[in-house]
């Protein structure tokens, strides 16, 4: 056995075999894998490929990186005819960017052509002007696509944006518009219109629920694993699974808080383990619940909603006073804090806003970090706006590879 001498043929064979190369790369942490795109063209192709990416994410948790925060001012969006007009110097789609990639997006001018921010998913943007003009912008092609005009006119509505996980090169998505009632009346049905990228068309349908409900207008659903969660009046959640093939909504009551009776902010998100998490904040602090998965499958979802009360699991309680105490560098200036948002597929941290400051709070270590953003000088009416973080899935891509996903 001649030790130390490399048989050059062997080196090439083992590592040029794609299967073997994938097997090896699957065992490395993300940061290591990302750096390897510079080794050679083959390695770049393998790593950027959708198949490798899927395999990798079946083993390791997918990560996302923050580009900034989009601001959506309710006073302008879907305004009545005599309502506020956006002054011309104010951008319709402001982005408070937190890194160079965000800055680049902002200065590319793309955002000026999209109307108002509605939602983002997997890095894709849904923007537009209610009730008829909608755009999808893809971070991969860097192009926008205007959806065909919807058929149904809904004066007041809420929406959902679903980008499907792709295992091949084609990205599929759905956009749902749901009619909200203006009168204080709750009914059993709701008219929705769904756009599917596969059909390229809108399709109207009616969803039924066993109890009466009313979806909250001007809101956007949280989507987890393709399931749509809308806020409904009187502290309920309406749940719709478009992939089940059944036109039904189920309703569950949101958990009552223990910190206070008076809650100001409610947000939804996805936990690290793929469950729905619900956060609400009051002047005193934040409570975070997780909706534990139903054991017996879907059929019980459509029974009465009293079963569901037991299924919320309170995971965290955060008292603001204690939070500021533990992070004394910030104390002196801030009084009113609220939960801003969750992070994608993440149960470990939340964004908290205090005045015009945004912080990242880590729930276990109780550490607060300032999130620096550009655009502090601009006037944001925080109380009438929704400020939403914009994350992109972290995975390398290259125009050198023919991996550019096409949009149907």
């Amino acid at each position: 056995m001649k030790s130390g001498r490399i048989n050059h043929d062997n080196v090439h064979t083992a590592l040029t075999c794609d299967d073997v190369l994938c097997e090896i790369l699957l065992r490395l942490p993300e940061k290591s894998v990302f750096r390897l795109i510079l080794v050679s063209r083959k390695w770049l192709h393998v790593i950027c490929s959708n198949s490798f990416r899927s395999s990798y994410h079946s083993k390791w948790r997918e990560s996302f990186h923050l580009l900034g925060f989009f601001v959506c001012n309710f006073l302008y969006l879907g305004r009545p005819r005599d309502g506020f007009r956006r002054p011309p110097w104010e951008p319709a789609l402001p982005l408070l960017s937190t890194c160079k990639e965000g800055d680049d997006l902002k200065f590319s001018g793309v955002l000026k052509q999209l109307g108002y921010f509605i939602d983002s998913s997997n890095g894709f943007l849904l923007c537009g002007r209610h009730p008829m003009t909608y755009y999808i912008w893809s971070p991969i092609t860097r192009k926008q696509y205007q959806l065909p005009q919807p058929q149904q006119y809904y004066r007041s509505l809420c929406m959902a944006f679903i980008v499907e996980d792709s295992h091949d090169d084609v990205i599929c998505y759905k956009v749902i518009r749901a009619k909200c009632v203006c009168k204080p009346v709750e009914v059993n049905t709701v008219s929705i219109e769904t756009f599917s990228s596969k059909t390229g068309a809108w399709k109207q349908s009616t969803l039924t629920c066993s109890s009466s409900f009313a979806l909250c207008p001007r809101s956007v659903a949280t989507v987890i694993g393709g399931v749509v969660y809308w806020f409904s009046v009187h502290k309920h959640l309406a749940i719709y699974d478009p992939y089940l093939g059944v036109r039904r909504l189920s309703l569950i009551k949101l958990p009552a808080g223990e910190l206070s009776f008076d809650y100001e902010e409610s947000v939804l998100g996805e936990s690290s383990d793929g469950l729905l998490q619900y956060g609400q904040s009051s002047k005193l602090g934040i409570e975070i619940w997780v909706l534990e998965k139903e054991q017996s499958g879907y059929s019980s979802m459509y029974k009465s909603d009293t079963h569901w009360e037991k299924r919320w699991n309170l995971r965290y309680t955060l008292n603001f006073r204690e939070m500021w105490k533990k992070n004394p560098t910030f104390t002196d200036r801030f009084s009113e804090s609220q939960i801003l948002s969750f992070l994608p597929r993440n149960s470990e941290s939340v964004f908290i806003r205090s005045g015009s400051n945004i912080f990242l709070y880590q729930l276990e270590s109780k550490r607060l970090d300032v999130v620096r953003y550009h655009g502090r000088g601009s006037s944001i009416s925080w109380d009438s706006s929704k400020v939403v973080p914009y994350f992109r899935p972290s995975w390398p891509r290259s125009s050198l590879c023919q991996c550019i996903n096409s949009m149907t």
Partner: protein
Amino acid sequence: MSSSSSPMQSTGRKLKLKSKDDETFEVEEAVAVKSQIFKYMVEDGVSNGPIPLPNVNGKTLARVLQWCQKHADPTITEDELNKYDAGFIDVDQAVLYDLLMAANYLNIEELLKLACMRVADMIKGKSPDEIRRTFNIKNDFTPEEEEEVRKENAWALGP
């Protein structure tokens, strides 16, 4: 080097294998089925004459069979097995790649995992340039292409 002189209880039948350089090996079925390929052959009732393995040379096959034998031994403890594996995979690159290819070809999951982990450990912490040198890979990017890749993935390639 054949592995027919086994200290284990020989309960089952034996499989005959022939390497690419015409070396023959006799191995217990219980040991051979570590490889999914042989497992299916045994289940399907094939294997009369020696099974030709044109992708594996005698030296490598001997090693692989030795590994399979150790891993098929019911008396060995997990600790001993881990120690054995650590020593087994501590080989130079040429042997490592032969083992890797053989494990892949013969579909021996545990051995493939072991070999891949070893290569992964060799990759971890190295710069692309160091990796190219370690594994003798050619840099086929033009300077412009490399710059493009870096630019498009600046967030990923950070410090």
